[in-house]
């Protein structure tokens, strides 16, 4: 925050007591009146569509009845949470949620970094920008279409993968019906769609590194690999850390819009995650309170992981979100 400019004679006379502060605040409020009016729509937006749902989250501890409303519905304490934790499928969906997202992070964080490093080493600028532009084309495709294209490739009747398999003398397979394939299909189709786009931010960070450093390293006889290791990588470490913290914070919220599309009755045991379960119990079966409890559990775990990762990063790497 800025220090306000004050007339010289009052600079020392500003009292630290509350009436003085109050007049100061009043003066500031009046001076910025226009800005407060401008920001009002945004404030209303966040109150209505972000803080009101946070108020509504109390139904996770109540038996919500639409007729009674949020406030008047009776309290039930932790009943819904107990029901969730004691359900036989709880450990399965927790395992799937964590498994799919950790797998996704393990592949999804390094892949775009490697791609950005690779593009940076290309000598032809023209080809580099061409390849980079191609690489993020899939980002602009909707999740529905991306899953549709995936189905074209893995279709058991006329899929590209099966035609290769048959050409090599194998038997055609129904990849999506095999539960053990689900995680791989989900994660790697995600890499296909996201790698180019995610690498852009690293490319931007790399282009900010001073060329002098490379010149100097070259003069000292550093090899290509050493230049990457000692100059390029350290140059983008802060970006890597920030993005990794953010994706770690989303660990419990795997992209359930895509999972919902890829799910079928045969792969449910590896594809059901907390968020898809929440959607089904809440909106399809209208168990609002139970579903809100599932969602709240999810969000709290997420938030805690974010705070822990951020704290670790601050301590170890001196980079953090706040």
């Amino acid at each position, binding site marked *: 925050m800025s220090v306000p400019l004050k007339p010289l004679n009052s600079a020392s006379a500003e009292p630290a007591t509350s009436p003085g502060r109050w007049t100061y605040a009043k003066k500031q409020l009046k001076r910025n009146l*226009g800005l407060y009016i401008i*920001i009002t729509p945004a404030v209303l937006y966040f109150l209505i569509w972000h803080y009101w749902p946070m108020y509504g*989250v109390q*139904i996770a501890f109540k038996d919500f009845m639409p007729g009674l409303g949020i406030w008047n519905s009776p309290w039930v304490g932790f009943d819904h949470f107990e029901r969730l934790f004691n359900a036989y499928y709880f450990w399965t969906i927790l395992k799937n949620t964590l498994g799919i997202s950790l797998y996704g992070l393990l592949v999804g964080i390094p892949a775009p970094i490697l791609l950005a490093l690779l593009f940076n080493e290309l000598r032809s600028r023209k080809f580099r920008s061409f390849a980079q532009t191609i690489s993020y084309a*899939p980002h602009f495709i909707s999740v529905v279409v991306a899953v*549709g294209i995936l189905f074209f490739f893995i279709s058991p009747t006329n899929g590209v993968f099966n035609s290769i398999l048959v050409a090599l003398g194998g038997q055609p397979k129904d990849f999506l019906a095999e539960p053990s394939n689900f995680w791989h299909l989900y994660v790697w189709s995600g890499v296909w769609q996201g790698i180019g786009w995610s690498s852009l931010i690293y490319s931007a960070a790399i282009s900010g590194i001073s060329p002098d450093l490379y010149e100097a390293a070259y003069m000292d006889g550093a090899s290509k690999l050493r230049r990457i290791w000692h100059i390029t990588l350290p140059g983008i470490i802060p970006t890597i850390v920030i993005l990794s913290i953010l994706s770690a914070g989303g660990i419990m919220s795997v992209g359930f819009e895509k999972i919902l599309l890829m799910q079928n009755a045969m792969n449910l045991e590896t594809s059901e995650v907390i968020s898809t379960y929440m959607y089904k119990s809440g909106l399809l079966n209208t168990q609002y309170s139970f579903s809100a409890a599932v969602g709240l559990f999810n969000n709290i775990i997420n938030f805690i992981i974010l705070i822990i990762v951020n704290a670790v990063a601050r301590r170890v790497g001196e980079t953090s979100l706040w």
Partner: protein
Amino acid sequence: MLLNIKRTPGEKLADAILLVLAILITIVILYPLLFVLFASFSDPRQLWDKPLLLYPAGFNLDSYAKLFENSEIWRGYGNTLLYALTGTAINIGMTVLGAYPLSRKRFYGKRLFTMLFAFTMFFGGGLIPLYLVNKQLGLLNTMWALVLPGAISAYNMIIMRTYFQTRIPDELEESAYVDGCNDFQMLYRIVLPLSMPIIAVMILFYGVGHWNSYFDAMIYLTDREKFPLQLILREILVQNDFKEMAGISVGAEYADQMMVKEGLKYAIVVISALPLLLLYPMLSRFFEKGIMVGAIKG
């Protein structure tokens, strides 16, 4: 980089390997898209026998001809256009209004407002409480349920605030005040004209989001006439469900019908994804710039 320095034979070899690797990766990323394009122009029967395409098999336009007879897809297209335009207009207006005050040093309470907004990036009420809010507001089965709840992305707003901070110095503002400009004129006459690059980026970010989303429409809309394109696509591509597919003759053999349907799918994907895939390379410079602004620091 280092273009003027002589390379050793080993380095030349390494560069060649990297180039080949980059070409391979580019092909792998591009092929699925090309495949769909080729398949959409292919004869469905030939495609069925030999799906791995390097060029259209038996070039024909039947799939597109069938597509043009389907009214539901075009209605979905129209709906998507309406939702994307309205939604993006709301997004831009709201984001600018939120970002501008936060970018001013003199704005008393800046920290408080920033915290109020940024907190929502990390914690939220969840799907069901949000659904209940929209229900209570009477937004169910209206387009407003698709465009209002996501009116501002806190992340985009912070990017825009950073842009205003760095591009519109407080000095400029002060001189405008001396000339008798108030906050509203300031925003409209000075800030907006100077911020067109970031606004272009935001139009693209938000616009792509609206064009491609299906989930909100799925949970909030019940009338088929209101369905956006992505929801229709979901039925056809994912659930394999062709409702009122005109143009598929009833008498035809079952296998034949199925092949025609498969051919249609490719054409539908091309038609739905084409606008963005044609648009983005032209705007790629803006995108890359926008990402850099975001990279400066939140």
